[in-house]
C-alpha cells in the first residue's frame, strides 16, 4: 500500500475520472499539484497565458466534446481571473470544474499573500463549490464536483484547495472506489406521464405549432429525437442561439434563430403560433422581447430539467420537468401508444403562411464590389468548410452574423457565450475545442474588439501546436455598440472607434504564426480556402470589412416577437 500526498491524490482522482487534458496556470499555492502532475502520463497539461483564457479553454473543451472541462489555477489573482469564465459557463450551463489553489488553512482569513475568499467571490456564479479542509477531502470533493458539473442542469463547480492539503508531508491511503452519495441532490430525468399525455394531445390538435429548441437539447443529446418529432409532425422548428445545430440549419423545416436578431419568419411564427413546444430553453430577454406580448395566441409546453427555469419569465401552460431527450422519448412513445398519427396536410395552411414570411428573405444584404461585408465572410467560410467546422465566436455583430449565416447541421459546432455575452471568450474556447477535437476544423470568428481581450493565448497555441483558424472581422469599431449608438443614441458615436489597432498580420507573425490581410471582396474566398488549407498552422485572416454594416433584422424594443426592423434594401 502506497501512501499519497493530497497533490498526488488530486492528480490520481482526475486520472480516475478520465481527465485527459487539464488547462492551467501555475502559482505559489499550486506548486505541489504541478509537481505531482509531472508524474502523470494520462493528463496533458495545457498552459494558457492568462487564467481567464485557461478557464474559457476548459469551457470550449466541454462544449465541443460534451465532457467536463477542467482547469487549475493558483490562489488570489489566479482565482479572481477565472471569475468571468466561471460566470460565462454558469449562464450557459457548461460542465466545468475549476480547481483553485488557496493559502494554507492556518492562514485563511488572515489576508495572507495571494489570499482571496474564492468560494465567497464565486458563490453566485457556481452550481456548487467546495473548500477542502483536509487532503482526504480532495478525492471526495473532486468526484462530487464532476458529478454535479455534468448532471442535471450542468454548471461550473469550484474546488478550492488550501496549500497544506496538497503538501508532501501528510500522506494517506488513496480511497479507490469511492461512490458519490448526495442525499440533497437528485436531478429528475423522467417527465410526468400525465403531463406528457397532455402534451401529445396538444400537439395532435395544434394548427399552428412551433418547435423551439435551446441549449438544454444540446446538453441532453436530444438531436435525434428532436429531428424525429419535427419530421413526423412536419413541425416548423426554431432555435435559440444556444440550440443551433440541434435541428439541421439546412433543413427546410428550420426557420432560423428566433429573438432579437432572429429571422422574421421564426419570430412571426412564434407570434402567431397556437402551440409552442419549448425544449431546454429559458426564455431569456434576448429571445422573448416583451414578455407581456410574447406569443399571445400560444399554449406553451415547456420542457426543462431545471424547475426554476419554468415559469420564471414566461408562464408555462404545460410544464414538464425532466431531461429533454428522456421526455422526448416518452412523448414519442405516448404518441405511438395512443396511435396519434400526424396529419401532415393539416399544417399546410400554416406552412403556406410561413413561406410568405420566409419569402421576405430577411437576411439579405447588399454586397459591395469594393468593400467586404461581414456577412460575406461568414457565407464564404460556410462554403469553404462545407458547413462542418466547429465555430467559436466572440460577442458582438460578428457573433450574430455567424448565428444568421452559418447553417449549423450538428450540435456542439457553435461555441458562443450566449448568456453572459463575454467578449474574449471565443479564442480560448476555440483552443479548448481544438484540444478536445483535434481532427475537426476549428475556426474562430471574432472582431477586432473581442479578439484583443484574450489575444495573449496566441502564445499557448504555438507552444502546444493548436492550429485554430482565426477570421477577424476587422471593422475598426466595436460594431454592435456602434450600431446601438447609431440606432438609439442619435448617431452619437462614443468610445466605440478602434483606430489604434495593431497590425494583426504582423502580430500573428510575431507570435510565430501565419497571417494575411484581405481587403477586396474578390480575394475573400481564396484567402479563406488558403487559411483552411494550412492544416498545421494557426492562421489569422485579417478581413477588413464595412464599418457601417448593421445586424438586421432586429426586434423593436418592448414589442412583440414579430415587431422587427428589417433591412430596407
Amino acid at each position, binding site marked *: 500500500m502506497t501512501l499519497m500526498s493530497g497533490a498526488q491524490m488530486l492528480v490520481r482522482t482526475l486520472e480516475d475520472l478520465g481527465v485527459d487534458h487539464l488547462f492551467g496556470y501555475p502559482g505559489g499555492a499550486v506548486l505541489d499539484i504541478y509537481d505531482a502532475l509531472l508524474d502523470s502520463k494520462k493528463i496533458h497539461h495545457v498552459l494558457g497565458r492568462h487564467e481567464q483564457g485557461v478557464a474559457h479553454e476548459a469551457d470550449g473543451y466541454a462544449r465541443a466534446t460534451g465532457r467536463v472541462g477542467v482547469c487549475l489555477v493558483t490562489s488570489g489573482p489566479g482565482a479572481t481571473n477565472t471569475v468571468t469564465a466561471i460566470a460565462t459557463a454558469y449562464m450557459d450551463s457548461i460542465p466545468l470544474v475549476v480547481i483553485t489553489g488557496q493559502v494554507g488553512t492556518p492562514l485563511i482569513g488572515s489576508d495572507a499573500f495571494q489570499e482571496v475568499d474564492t468560494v465567497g467571490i464565486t*458563490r453566485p456564479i457556481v452550481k*456548487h463549490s467546495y473548500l477542502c479542509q483536509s487532503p482526504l477531502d480532495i478525492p471526495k470533493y473532486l468526484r462530487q464536483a464532476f458529478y454535479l458539473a455534468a448532471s442535471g442542469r450542468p454548471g461550473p463547480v469550484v474546488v478550492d484547495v488550501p496549500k497544506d492539503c496538497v503538501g508532501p508531508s501528510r500522506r494517506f491511503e488513496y480511497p479507490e472506489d469511492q461512490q458519490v452519495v448526495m*442525499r*440533497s441532490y437528485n436531478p429528475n430525468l423522467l417527465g410526468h406521464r400525465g403531463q406528457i399525455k397532455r402534451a401529445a394531445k396538444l400537439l395532435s390538435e395544434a394548427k399552428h405549432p412551433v418547435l423551439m429548441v435551446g441549449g438544454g437539447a444540446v446538453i441532453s443529446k436530444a438531436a435525434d429525437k428532436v429531428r424525429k418529432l419535427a419530421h413526423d409532425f412536419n413541425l416548423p422548428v426554431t432555435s435559440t442561439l444556444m440550440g443551433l445545430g440541434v435541428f439541421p440549419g439546412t433543413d427546410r423545416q428550420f426557420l432560423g434563430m428566433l429573438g432579437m436578431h432572429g429571422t422574421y419568419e421564426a419570430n412571426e411564427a412564434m407570434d402567431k403560433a397556437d402551440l409552442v413546444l419549448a425544449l431546454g430553453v429559458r426564455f431569456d430577454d434576448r429571445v422573448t422581447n416583451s414578455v407581456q406580448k410574447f406569443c399571445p395566441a400560444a399554449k406553451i409546453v415547456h420542457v426543462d430539467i*431545471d424547475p*426554476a427555469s419554468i415559469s420564471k419569465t414566461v408562464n408555462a401552460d404545460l410544464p414538464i420537468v425532466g431531461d429533454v431527450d428522456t421526455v422526448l422519448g416518452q412523448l414519442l412513445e405516448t404518441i405511438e401508444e395512443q396511435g396519434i398519427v400526424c396529419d401532415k396536410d393539416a399544417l399546410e395552411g400554416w406552412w403556406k403562411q410561413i413561406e410568405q414570411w420566409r419569402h421576405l428573405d430577411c437576411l439579405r444584404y447588399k454586397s459591395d464590389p469594393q468593400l467586404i461585408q461581414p456577412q460575406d465572410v461568414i457565407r464564404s467560410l460556410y462554403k469553404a468548410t462545407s458547413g462542418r467546422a466547429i465555430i467559436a465566436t466572440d460577442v458582438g455583430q460578428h457573433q450574430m452574423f455567424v448565428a444568421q449565416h452559418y447553417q449549423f447541421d450538428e450540435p456542439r459546432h457553435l461555441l458562443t457565450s450566449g448568456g453572459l455575452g463575454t467578449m474574449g471568450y471565443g479564442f480560448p474556447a476555440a483552443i479548448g475545442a481544438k484540444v478536445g477535437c483535434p481532427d475537426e476544423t476549428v475556426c474562430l470568428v471574432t472582431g477586432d474588439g473581442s479578439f484583443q481581450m484574450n489575444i495573449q493565448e496566441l502564445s499557448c497555441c504555438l507552444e502546444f501546436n493548436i492550429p485554430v483558424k482565426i477570421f477577424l472581422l476587422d471593422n475598426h469599431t466595436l460594431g454592435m455598440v456602434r450600431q446601438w449608438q447609431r440606432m438609439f443614441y442619435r448617431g452619437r458615436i462614443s468610445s466605440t472607434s478602434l483606430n489604434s489597432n495593431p497590425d494583426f498580420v504582423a502580430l500573428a507573425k510575431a507570435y510565430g504564426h501565419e497571417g494575411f490581410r484581405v481587403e477586396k471582396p474578390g480575394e475573400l474566398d481564396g484567402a479563406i480556402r488558403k487559411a483552411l488549407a494550412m492544416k498545421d498552422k494557426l492562421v489569422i485572416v485579417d478581413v477588413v470589412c464595412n464599418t457601417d454594416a448593421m445586424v438586421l433584422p432586429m426586434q423593436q424594443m418592448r414589442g412583440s416577437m414579430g415587431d422587427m426592423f428589417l433591412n430596407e434594401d
Partner: protein
Amino acid sequence: MRQIISILLENETGALSRVVGLFSQRGYNIENITAAPTEDNTISRITILTQGDNVSVERITKQLHKLVNVIKVSSLEDDSQGIVEREILFIKVQCIGHTLREEIKNLCDIFKAEIVDVTPELYILQYVNTSAEIDRFLKAIAEQADVIETVRSGVCGIFRGDHALHS
C-alpha cells in the same frame, strides 16, 4: 404578503451563506431568519420570514431547491391545517421606583411574559409569542418605561397536525 419559508439543509460550512446569498441575488428581502441544527445534527433547519406574493415565493422556493446543500424547502403558508409560529423577545427596560416596577410586573402578568433578570434599576423581560403579539407587548412596555435595548430571535414555525418537513 407575509411568508414563512422553512428549509432543511446539510449542516455544512457555507450552506447558510448560500441560502442568504440567494435571497439578495434574486432581489428578495429577508425580514428575519433563524437557523440551528435539528435532532439529526447533520441537518440544519432554517426559517425565513419574507414578503412576497405566491408567485414570487414559488420562484424563490424553486431557486432554493436548486442549491445543492438544500434537502427540502416548504412555504409554511401551503398547509390548510395551519402552523404554529413563535418568536422570542428580550427587552431591557429602565425600572426605577416602586410604582413603575409594579406596573411593568403587571404588564408581564397580563401578557404572560417573564422577568428574567433584575437589578435595582433594570428589568430584563422575556416574551415568547407570535410576531404580532410581540409587537403589541413591546408597544405596551415602551409606553410605560424607557427601553434600553431589545433583541428578537426571528420566527420559528412548524406545521400543525401530521404534516411535517422530513428529510
